[in-house]
């Protein structure tokens, strides 16, 4: 398996196979969960009724939702193993650690973006944008998994929880679903596929990225891969 930072033909491997598998499984399961979840949440609307119809009705919709919930949980277990027990995963996680640098970077970007003065900060692999989406998804998915299992095994959970917590659980599960949807579609999808290098950046499938682009957008990461020198 090729390591992150491998350089071939002017391109660099940014995402290892582990990461790409995790990402695709996460992507597929979250889309399926969103589509089946919104069918239930927006059952009053045309969209909800349409989704319910194509999902084969209320009962089958629930079965699809729970199937992908299991897939998601397996993916989370994979991710936990990856970040805790592999060197590569651990390094990547440490790169995602929030720091004071993110705050200063954010204000620098805002200043440059809004006023045109100053310059873009020198980014590493994960900027505040990636950290917002990663930790947003971590928090969101954790809440979704907990509330989801409480709702799935409703008899068991209601034998121990007060009813009002159960009512709140339902609201939280629905609202967190929307938050995750916003993070992934309004934030992540724009940053990667629309506001980035090109429409639909295929790097998440191949793992490779052009060195030239990386040099411009992620100078610190570029330097790490090329050993600080220029033009490899």
């Amino acid at each position, binding site marked *: 398996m090729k390591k992150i930072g491998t350089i071939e033909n002017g391109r660099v491997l940014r995402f290892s196979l582990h990461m790409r598998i995790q990402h695709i499984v996460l992507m597929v399961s979250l889309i399926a969960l969103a589509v089946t979840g919104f069918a239930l949440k927006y059952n009053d609307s045309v969209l909800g009724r349409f989704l319910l119809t194509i999902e084969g009705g209320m009962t089958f919709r629930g079965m699809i939702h729970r199937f992908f919930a299991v897939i998601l949980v397996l993916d989370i277990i994979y991710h936990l193993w990856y970040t805790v027990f592999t060197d590569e995963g651990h390094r990547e996680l440490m790169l995602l650690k929030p720091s004071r640098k993110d705050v200063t970077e954010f204000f620098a970007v805002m200043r440059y973006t809004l006023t045109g003065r100053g310059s873009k900060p020198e980014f590493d692999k994960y900027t505040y944008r990636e950290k917002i989406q990663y930790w947003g998804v971590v928090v969101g998915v954790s809440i979704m998994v907990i509330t989801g299992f409480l709702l799935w095994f409703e008899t068991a959970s*209601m034998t121990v929880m007060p*009813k009002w917590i159960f009512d709140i659980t*339902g609201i*939280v599960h629905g*609202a967190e679903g929307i*938050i995750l949807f916003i993070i992934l579609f309004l934030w992540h999808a724009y940053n990667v596929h629309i*506001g980035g290098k090109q429409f639909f950046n295929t790097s998440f499938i191949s793992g490779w990225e052009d060195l030239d682009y990386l040099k411009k957008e992620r100078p610190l990461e570029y330097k790490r891969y090329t050993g600080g020198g220029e033009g490899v």
Partner: protein
Amino acid sequence: MQLNSNKSKRGRVMTKSLLYKSSIQWFGVSTAFVILSFCTPLYASSKCVECHVKGKNGPDVRLIDLKFLKNSVHRALECIDCHEGAGVEPHTSEKALPVNCGRCHVKYNEEYKKSIHGQAQAKGIKDAPSCSDCHGTHGIRAASDPLSSVNRENITQLCLKCHIDSDITAQYNLPGINFFKSYQESAHYKIKGTTLQPAAVCSDCHGSHTILPADDPFSFVNRKNIPSDCGKCHSIEKKRYSMSIHWKAFEKGIKDAPVCTDCHGEHTILDVQNPNSQINPVKIPYTCARCHESLKLSEAYRIPPKRLSTYFNTYHGIAIRFGDTTVANCASCHGYHEILPASDPRSPINPANLVKTCSRCHPGANENFAKGRVHVDVSPKGEKGVFAVRVFYIIFISVLCAGFLFHVIADILRQRRESREGRRS
């Protein structure tokens, strides 16, 4: 004399001898009847036959077809028994034609006079049915005879003759035609009994001779009489319904309280399995909601409001709207015929019975499971905590959206500026 002397003896003997005497009478009567039936019938030997069957006195005389009389229950009677006026001279049709069935059928005649049909006849409304309009004339048969117009097999068609006539229904302000036609779609018409006849026909519910409009307090189908009317066949259901808060309220004079027809429909009564039935699991919430979602009724009778909207907020309510019948509907928790308030110890939603009620679908439900409010009204007046969580998320999601959109739009503007500057340099 023998009988008199027996009277002083023990009652058992007396009864025995009375029975003996009446048996002889019955034997005599029935033998006479059988002999009369098999012998040359009286109608044929009658004087009337000469003119009215054989047409001896020319074409001005009205002819009678003996074929009908032969099969009639009245075949043992003389013409003059019914056409009393025919024996009086001069022998005119004005005198001969009118027939007074009440001379023999005293009880039915009295009942008929009190009925809406009888009242209308008395007022001179010729469209209102008289005896012969329903029972026929010379060919009159017993109601048990399948060829009788008033046999259960045929009575629907008989009543519909007038009641789906648009001229008649319009002229006398009768209920609409479709109201009657819809009976033929109902379970009462479609489900056949052992005799392959409809389970319930018009007269079963409305009565026959005693028929009265529903707004008449003596009518079988007046709302206050409906439970006993339906109870004639559905006795268990009636018994259970009589225990319910609905009937208790109705008896107290609350006319808005539902009787059988308010939930089940009238002519359109359908089997519970039928998806169009008002009591089908999928339709029940809407049926109950007619009263229990009504602000007017909930305020007037101090019953809890918003029962439907708070149910539709739950998973039970959402799933049932999309045809999932495994989830709980109103009746699953509240019961149906014997609906009682939660305060009643017999009610399935009484706190003491809740665990049992919930565990019918949720095996393993315990005390804690059954605690808490089920019809959750998420509003500042209802469940404040749940409402606060919802408001928090609305604000949080709005701020998040605004922040992301701001960042995205600013980024798009930056890129445009950069590309402009890039072109310039």
